[in-house]
């Protein structure tokens, strides 16, 4: 058990403007389950992408060895050839193809390009038995639930003679039963000598299954804990994950909270494709004038889905619920109606949903309120430029000109353009979804300052963030969301990272009990 399978030394990986990994050393012993934990953006996935060749040799500094041999992978194929297989959070299966076809995708059982279907099927049946799936191998992937799809991914990994299996948040979209089945499978693999790196936010799982727990924070290894004795508790892990100096990361905030502005009552939304999944289940929240309300939660808790479904039903199948503004129910069934009622939603994914990257800054800023720069449908270029320049100055967007193309701006400045767009639409309620994702500390501080200023103007701010310090540092009141429900509501003054995490975990346990019942 004690021989080292994977050893990484001094791994440093930089993205433009961000050091994602700082001199990371990490090792995995043969046949252990090694959990890698940390907040979003701590560098867990980045580290594993280095191991699996997603980031090719040369794109990072440092070296790593697999079975004592130094590795220089150029792509995933090379790492798979060595026996390292990564299963990403977003499953890499082709829904229209069968289980067999997916298992042997790019690894077809063929002679001279002609597939031997008999061999493929018999091998697939064998692999499915190993992962405990009873489906016939010609079942289409689209007919399987997420849990079973995950197992097919693992079967696919096994077909490649895997020695190190890397799972990136394998249970984030699974229910409790499926999660337990998956973890049991990992234990069986351990018995067979297959090592496993498990990236997970579900600390309870980590606690129960891991032999070693490595904590990453801000791209650096904080500690490696030996968990075999069972004395490593959830609280102990959380302390390692979040314990950081919080002075001066947030601007001082003196809130003047006014009357009730917006209430969402008993909001229920189904998944757009899997109609049996109630993704948002009876969520009620409210925000007052001048108040910053944080929504904390892990990825997949349903926060973005909730926000988008409120914003003109831009996500999911609306089931029921009310939106009340200033005491009167309002119609938010389309985006233009939501905007007209003073609601704005600044997306978490600015490149896909927030900006028109091929257009210039001014075009992006005025898009949500073209009426503000036009007269009877005719845009006034001077007015538009003036508006854009005003926001550039007010939000300190670093760009040579408002005619710069948005794609050329840095992440923080792109985020400010998205913010400008919604500020110009002059909403009363601004929903900010992960407004500081992927931007540096200085720009984060500026965005927090803008949030404070908007609240001081009497707007209601709803801040969705996966970074607990951010939620704690910026909000006046915090909702904790888990599994599509509100798990807790607390004043920010009383909240701690531990109390938020506890609320999430309790919800997950309650969910599990519900399933058992």
């Amino acid at each position: 058990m004690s021989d080292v399978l994977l050893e990484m030394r001094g791994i440093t990986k930089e993205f433009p403007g961000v050091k994602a990994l700082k001199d990371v050393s990490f090792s995995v012993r043969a046949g252990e389950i090694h959990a890698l934990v940390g907040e979003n953006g701590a560098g867990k996935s980045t580290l594993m992408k280095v191991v699996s060749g997603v980031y090719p040799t040369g794109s990072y500094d440092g070296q790593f060895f697999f079975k004592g041999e130094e590795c220089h992978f150029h792509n995933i194929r090379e790492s798979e050839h060595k026996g390292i297989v990564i299963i990403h959070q977003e499953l890499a299966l082709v829904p229209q193809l069968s289980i067999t076809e997916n298992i042997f995708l790019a690894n077809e059982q063929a002679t001279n390009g002609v597939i031997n279907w008999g061999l493929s099927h018999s091998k697939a049946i064998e692999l499915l038995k190993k992962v405990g799936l009873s489906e016939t191998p010609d079942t289409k992937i689209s007919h399987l639930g997420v849990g079973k799809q995950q197992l097919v991914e693992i079967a696919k990994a096994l077909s490649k003679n895997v020695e190190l299996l890397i799972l990136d948040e394998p249970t984030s979209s699974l229910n409790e039963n499926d999660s337990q089945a998956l973890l049991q499978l990992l234990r069986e693999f351990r018995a067979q000598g297959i090592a496993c790196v498990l990236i997970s936010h579900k600390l309870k799982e980590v606690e129960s299954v891991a032999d070693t727990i490595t904590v990453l924070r801000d791209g650096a290894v904080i500690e490696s804990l030996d968990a075999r004795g069972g004395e490593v508790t959830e609280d102990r892990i959380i302390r390692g994950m979040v314990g950081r100096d919080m002075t001066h990361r947030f601007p001082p905030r003196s809130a003047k909270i006014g009357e009730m502005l917006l209430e969402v009552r008993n909001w229920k939304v189904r998944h757009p494709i899997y109609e049996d999944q109630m993704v948002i289940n009876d969520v009620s929240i409210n925000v007052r004038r001048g108040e910053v309300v944080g929504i904390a939660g892990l990825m997949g808790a349903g926060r973005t889905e909730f926000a988008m479904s409120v914003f003109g039903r831009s996500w999911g199948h609306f089931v029921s619920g009310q939106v009340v503004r200033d005491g009167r129910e309002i119609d938010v069934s389309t985006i233009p109606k939501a905007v007209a009622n003073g609601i704005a939603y600044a997306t978490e994914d600015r490149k896909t949903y927030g900006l028109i990257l091929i257009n210039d800054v001014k075009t992006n800023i005025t898009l949500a309120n073209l009426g503000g720069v036009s007269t009877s449908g005719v845009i006034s270029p001077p007015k538009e430029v003036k508006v854009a320049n005003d926001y550039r100055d007010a939000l300190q967007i670093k760009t040579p000109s408002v005619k710069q193309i948005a794609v050329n701006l840095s992440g923080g400045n792109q985020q400010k353009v998205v913010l400008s767009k919604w500020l110009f639409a002059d909403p009363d309620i601004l929903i900010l979804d992960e407004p500081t994702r992927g931007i540096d500390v200085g720009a984060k501080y500026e965005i927090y300052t803008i949030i404070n200023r908007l609240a001081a103007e009497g707007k209601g701010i709803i801040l969705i963030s996966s970074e607990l310090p951010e939620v704690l540092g910026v909000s006046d009141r915090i909702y904790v969301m888990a599994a599509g429900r509100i798990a807790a509501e607390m004043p920010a003054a009383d909240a701690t990272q531990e109390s938020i995490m506890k609320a999430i975990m309790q919800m997950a346990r309650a969910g599990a009990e519900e399933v058992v019942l």
Partner: protein
Amino acid sequence: MSANTTTPIIAPADSEAQVSVGRRIAKAVGQGGLLLVLLLFVVFFQVTTNGVMLKPLNVTNVFLQNGYILVMALGMLLIIVIGHIDLSVGSVAGFLGAIVAVLMVGVTVPVLGKIQLDPILAVAITLIAGGLIGVWQGFWVAYLRVPSFIVTLAGMLLFRGATLFMLGGQPVGPFPEGFRAISSGFIPEMIGSVPDPFGTGTPPIAVGPLVVPLGGGPIQLTTLLLGVVLSAFLIFIAFRARSEQLKYGFSVPSMGQFWLRNALIIAGIMFIAYRLAGYKGLPIVALIAFILIGMYMFITLRTVIGRRIYAVGGNAKAAMLSGVNSKRMVFLTFINMGALAALGGMIIAARFNSATPKAGYGFELDVIAATFVGGASAYGGVGTVAGTVIGAIFFGLLNIGMGVMSVPIDYQFMFKALVLLFAVYFDVRTKNKEG
């Protein structure tokens, strides 16, 4: 062409330092490599045809023979910018040409029976019918979410069949004189004409192998005056845009660059006006095209609707989340295309003085090619009216140039194919360097 916004892609200000003279001229004119290629072809044909290419008749023919492509390319531009395609324009134009014919000529046709309407009424009905065809196709694309490629492929067959059905396989014509004027008439001369100052006997100016013929028929003063008015108007707009930019603290091209750019544009306009004036004056089809070009430039550059079309094409999700009703925008661009296809179809019919079952056959390819050569992106969100006009004229010029050179038709096809590839490649390359 206003000074600041001929293309939505704006190069960073610092890329100006180390560009060649040719690129600087091309950039000053605002359409990058394409205009340069166009000018090279003009010179090439001029040399190889011994100066015949730029004779008044041929310059006039560029407009007479390509007016319908220009008109329909404006509609296609919006469709492509919003991220779709319309393969049916040739068939739709043919069908609408047939409609206007049966409404006007007084023949007995299936369903409608025998009708003989006033040409103006017939034209109006045909334009509305074009809009309705746009409603039909736009509804399938925008609201029923069938890919535009499929919807318009079906439309291509549907309206080809409808044309045959309508005409019973027979050409319908001839048309009243007034209607034919759409494609073969010229604006009436209101001032009079003077002899060409260079006279018919003036020897052409030769610059090396390049021969520029001067002198032609009597100069139609109205046409020349329109050229002067248009030039003055463009200078006025350019000046106003420049002073606006200065007012808001933008870096503007130097006065020298400003004048170089405007001088080139005006020289182009005045040369074309002089040539047209030396034949029979401004063709009515060119007048229609110029008015539409002005309108669509305004729509794309200055209106909320235009901006939204570009936004949907640039990032449909982001536009939707910004409150743009993207389905309605797609729907509207198809209605617009239908109306312009009606106009194109009528120009084609008027040109041949009859509606034929084969009219408009394959024209969708010319129209799409003109739009792409003009710099529109197949990914949506990018494309300009100015570019599209140059693209359409480019193909018109190629057709006439090769015709004058008596290039056999087989070679013409192959040559056009290669020119299409290289022109777009050259344009893409220029843009990449600038971006």
